[in-house]
């Protein structure tokens, strides 16, 4: 009678500690590795999101002549209703959607084409070109925008001066042009970056596949289109999602162009609208609501794009 419990206990003592003691033994290490990440994740990611959502439910209120201490009043979804009814918000959103629909495919198409060229059997000086294409990305975003602003500004631009001497009236800042002038800057900055991601994905494809295709009589074009492109689809999806999110957060270019172009208003893109609401109008509730809506739009578009791009069409 006394033996059975002993065996049971022994069996248990052989099994359970294996399950139980391991976490205990490594708890220190697990904590050490995860706590810094979790702490930063909570403080710089989760907390600001929660704070923004909470803030978007409040509005600043004064009374009388407005010189008393302003107070924060709970207004529920009023800031969201205001954003959805604000023509400036929709105009700003429409602008970046138009920007994205044109700029993202152009940039990624260009990056893919250049990557295929660099990956082709005929390519020489690949590492040199890789660095050259990547170089613009090393220029900080604002600096890049300022550099281009000097190239666009009617009074300073060498292009405009050249156009004048040829009798051509170049205007990079007109109401219908300035969006594409900005798209040009973004493409210039990010094409090389996306190229690198696609190229590294291309170079991971086993070379013997190309050899087999060549033996079967496939042209280089055929290899590129039917073997290479399908296999870099994950890289295209990644760069695509990044670019979509980047487009929705577009800020540097319009903020810099705002200084030199009449066509770029202070609420030209949603991020500028949110900044103006927060730091000009002191309306942090509205700024938060706009930011939350923008995040939702970015999330939805990214999901839709991901679904379409990863759909198995085999």
């Amino acid at each position, binding site marked *: 009678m006394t033996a059975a419990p002993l065996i049971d206990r022994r069996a248990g003592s052989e099994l359970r500690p294996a399950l139980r003691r391991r976490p205990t033994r490594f708890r220190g290490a697990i904590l050490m590795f995860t706590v810094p990440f979790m702490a930063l994740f909570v403080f710089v990611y989760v907390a600001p999101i929660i704070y923004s959502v909470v803030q978007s439910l409040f509005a600043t209120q004064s009374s009388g*002549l*407005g010189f008393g201490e302003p107070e924060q009043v709970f207004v529920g979804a009023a800031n969201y209703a205001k954003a959805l009814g604000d023509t400036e918000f929709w105009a700003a959103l429409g602008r970046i959607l138009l920007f994205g629909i044109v700029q993202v495919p152009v940039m990624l198409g260009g990056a893919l084409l250049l990557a295929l060229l660099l990956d082709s059997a005929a390519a020489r000086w690949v590492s040199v070109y890789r660095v050259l294409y990547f170089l613009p990305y090393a220029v900080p975003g604002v600096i890049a925008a300022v550099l281009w602003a000097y190239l666009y500004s009617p009074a300073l631009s060498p292009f405009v001066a050249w156009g004048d001497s040829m009798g051509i009236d170049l205007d990079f800042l007109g109401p219908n042009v300035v969006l594409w002038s900005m798209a040009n800057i973004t493409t210039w900055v990010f094409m090389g970056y996306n190229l690198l991601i696609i190229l590294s994905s291309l170079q991971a494809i086993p070379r013997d596949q190309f050899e087999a295709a060549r033996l079967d009589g496939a042209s280089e074009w055929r290899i590129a289109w039917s073997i290479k492109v399908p296999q870099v689809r994950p890289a295209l999806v990644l760069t695509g999602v990044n670019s979509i999110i980047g487009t929705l957060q577009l800020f540097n270019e319009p903020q810099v162009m705002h200084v030199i172009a009449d066509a770029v208003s202070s609420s030209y893109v949603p991020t500028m609208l949110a*900044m103006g609401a927060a730091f000009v109008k002191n309306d942090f509730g509205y700024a938060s609501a706009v930011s939350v809506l923008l995040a939702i739009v970015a999330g939805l578009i990214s999901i839709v794009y991901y679904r379409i791009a990863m759909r198995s069409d085999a």
Partner: protein
Amino acid sequence: MKQRKILAGIVAAGAVVTMLAGCSSASGGSDSGSVTLGYMGWVPKADEAVAIWNEAHPDIQVEYSPVANGQEAYPKIRSSVQAGNAGCLAQLTYDQVPSFVADGMLLDVTDETADVADTFLDWTWSQVSPGGKTYAIPQDTGPVALYYRADLFEQYGIDVPATWDDFAAAAEQVHAADPEVTLSYLATDDSSTVAAYAWQRGASWFSIDGDSWKVGIDDAASLESAEYWQGLLDSGAIATTKRWDPGFYSELASGKYLSMIGAAWNTALITANVGDTAGAWRVAPMPTDGDSTDTANSGGSAVAVLKGCEHPEQAVEFATWLNSSEESLDILAASDGGGLYPAATEALDYDVVNQADDFFGGQNLNEVFKESAQNVNTSWAWGPTYSSTDTALTDGLSKVATGSSTLPDLMGSLQDSTLSDMEDRGISAIPAD
């Protein structure tokens, strides 16, 4: 083994804490009697004046951080106050003071400034005391004048325009002689000058009536001014430009514009940026509306005490010295220094303000500015949501430039947006009749 693990844990935890602490490093500390004041501003060479102060006041050290000009600076100043690391003092143009007060960004220093009120022009003191409490120390004013190129005026055979009718006639004459050149411009990023044009004609954008604001951005005088300038734009006699665009000074130096209507603080900017044209510039009084002698003020700043300042007394002491002492104004008011036209009453007699200026052909500019300053309608007030109105005005001017709006329409829409901004904030406001 165990010790090493603990050590690693401490290092990792320490790293996290340092990173988090880095996000909230607080404003100027005060160790044993010595006080540090942060001060943000954009007056050229203000750092030199601050250095003189710091030399003489080891116990009140000022840390000056230059910020971009005007509208570009306010988001930074506001976010610093919001974050609680703004230091103590910041430069604000007068039009922004009521908005900053309404947004709870400034500190009431009525008691600390009781002794210095008389040092400054009365009307500047009311500009920094919205609602009867004082929040800032006046720095400079912006009496408007006509800066012009004497050589080009001669070349095109133009007399200095005394009235706006003369100005319009001269503008048409210049434009007819050379379509590439205009007498002057309308700057779409300089809302303060557009406000000044209305101000001069007797507009009253904001006034207090009992417990409520009266808003008159589309009043008769404002519309009259708007129609005048729209007329010049429509005929092509005047061009629009962006005066804070880096290309502006190259246009000015090239002689594309024969003149510039602007406040006194432009002196230092012109001197520094279009050096090639030294000696060719002169300053004449602002053109007037018929027989009226009224002029206007454009811009001018105050040094405001920010919410969260721990040493308001010392901050006021420094700001008063900065804006009224001859020691400081020798730099801030010099045309090759800060180029300010001081708000301190006695300062207008200082030598530095009364120099024969070679850049302007040996002219003593103060003779023009002093008269302009005396003819400014000083009852002008700015409303508590003007920071929003100012941005809308700037955006609207850009629409006028691209042809999608007109100045009179803009005044109407500003009136509406300002009233609705005030209503949204719970501030009592009615349209002026």
